[in-house]
């Protein structure tokens, strides 16, 4: 239970960064933190049914559920791609507008032409 409360806390911290912080870099950090919280949630859930690594060999019993771990490998890859793309966009916005503040950047962007 403690682990789940901790993960909910991490999730909310990340969400605060995404929603409330005006700095685009901190928004990206917030997104990464939320992703990590969800990944941890899946891994902890998979570990609740066993303790051994899910290697299907003779003598290996009481394994963790391998499905959440397999799913999270995909989710981590997607998370990395999204973060990389977000950072690339932040670089472009900063180069074009000279600010990392999202609201200021929106004001300076003009009509796009």
């Amino acid at each position, binding site marked *: 239970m403690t682990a789940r409360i901790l993960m909910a806390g991490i999730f909310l911290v990340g969400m605060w960064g995404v929603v409330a912080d005006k700095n685009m870099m901190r928004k990206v950090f917030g997104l990464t933190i939320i992703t990590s919280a969800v990944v941890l949630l899946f891994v902890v859930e998979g570990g609740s049914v066993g303790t051994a690594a899910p290697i299907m060999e003779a003598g290996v019993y009481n394994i963790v559920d391998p499905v959440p771990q397999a799913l999270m490998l995909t989710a981590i890859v997607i998370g990395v*791609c999204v973060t990389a793309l*977000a950072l690339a*966009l932040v670089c472009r916005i900063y180069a074009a507008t000279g600010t990392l503040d999202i609201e200021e950047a929106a004001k300076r962007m003009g009509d796009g032409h």
Partner: protein
Amino acid sequence: MDIKMDISILALLPTLLPLFAGALILIAKAFLNEKAQDRTTELAGIIGLLLPWIPMMLLLPRILAGESPTLVIGGWSYGTGIFFKFDGLAWALNALTLLLCAGAWVYSRSSGPRGPVFTIMFLIQVASCCAAMSTLDVFNLFVCMEVMGMTSYVLIAQAKTPGSYVASFTYLMSSAATMLLFLIGVYGLYRLTGALDYNAIQQFLSQCSVEESRFASLCAICMIIPIVLRAAIMPLSGWLLLAHSQAPHSISAVLSGVLLKVPLFALVRLLLIFPSGGTLGLAISFAGALGALLAVLLALVQSDAKRLLAYHSISQTGYVAAALGAAIAPLQGSNPGLGLVLLVAAYLHALGHGIFKGLLFLSVGNLMDVAKQRNVYLIQGGVSVLKRSGDSLGLTGFSFAVGALSIAAMPPFIGFATKGYISKFLAENHLYGLLAAASVLTVASFIKLSRIFVSFPSSSSAQKTESNQEAPMRKTSLDDDHPHLGSGRLSSVVGLALLCIAGGLLAPQLFRFGILLFDSLLQGSPSLYPLSVRPPELFVLNDLTQTALTIPAGLIISLLISSKTGQRLTHGISGHIASFETIFLGMGVALIALAIQI
């Protein structure tokens, strides 16, 4: 048996061919010169957007016969591998995707962007849309949605303007954060049922306790929110305005026509497996109808042409959501026949909206590029300006008129038929009034927008132009570097205009075809809507009179909004850009509203 399996494998090709075409471009980019790269890009477009029609046509007879080709990718056992089901819904949405993306791609070959990176992303997006409709696994749906999202972020940024970067970043952050909510929903469902595929989850939920059913509904809400955000149903549509108005014109057309619709129809599949799906569907239906009205109210006060069209995307998607949401409960058993016709009406309007909104984005985009101006109050005499840029026959103006009449639901165009079907089947519903009011305001909004093509510069507007937008408008004199409208631009808008006309004239046939396609969704039920039953008659005096009355009402509202006082009063609203707080506040409101339903 072997022949049957081979045919089922064809179900993968609409997803695999665009990916293969993307890989071809990558190889060409790595090893060939620029000229060869350009040829390979054209070839890849044909492979990725036209060839998928061959397997789809081969599979069509089986689907119309009520079969749904299924396969597990990679030969894995059922429940382990990726499970694909190519039923009527998948066929219909794949057809919509391929049709509209082909039109947008032809346009982009002429107007740009058209480089290898753009085409690769475009083709991956097509593949992910096709896959999202065929997968029957909640985690695979998450992956497809993420791929759709990531390609959208890149394609929006292809406009290479500061505005497009900000739009892409805003969409990315709001969409990626809410997709994690989807993942939490997947976690909850897996924890409850021990399964990820729809059939196993549905089987578990059909015999679970009340507490388990309530927990499943909470998981469903977590999964619905991101999908509703992608479909831009109010109050989760804040991201759309920047994204659609700042993207390249061809991508705006695809975002509006395809990317809003595919998640919505994927949601139908998902809702059908939950016992509370009907209740949640009704909430979505209400949000859609209310959004249809509010969005068109906001569209009316916009001065930016593409932002006006973006608001109409929210409004028209609201129509689709209203019909789709209302279809879930009947489809789950209370009245499958009504559910089926509502689903068909929703699909036809999604298809119609995809065509006429694509047409509107592309035709208005042609004029914006030539006039180098986006303000509807400052663009004047569009037809003559376009003539001087190579559109001597006035094809863009004609196509825009067809699109505007379609969205305003004027006969005999496709919008008249598709909105007519939705109105007929929701006539007894309390949401009908909201949709009827939205129709009148849509007419008003397009009367206002049509001025950019037909009006001529007046002395006051010319003075205003000189004082406010001197540099951009000077370029409309076309003395220096004015863009020439290529044949790709003109042929794509004319092609879509012809589809609007053909769709309107063939609406009864399309309706019957839709019934045959979606009949397989009613698992285990005999055909409830036999072919002998005729689609509702649209050309009746009462309906035509109502349609005719929307014109003077729309004209009056349009004149009021376009007057100097109207412009002054609405100026503050038109420039509003949704902040992150607003977008996530919308998410919170949607979460609470859906939670109250269960």
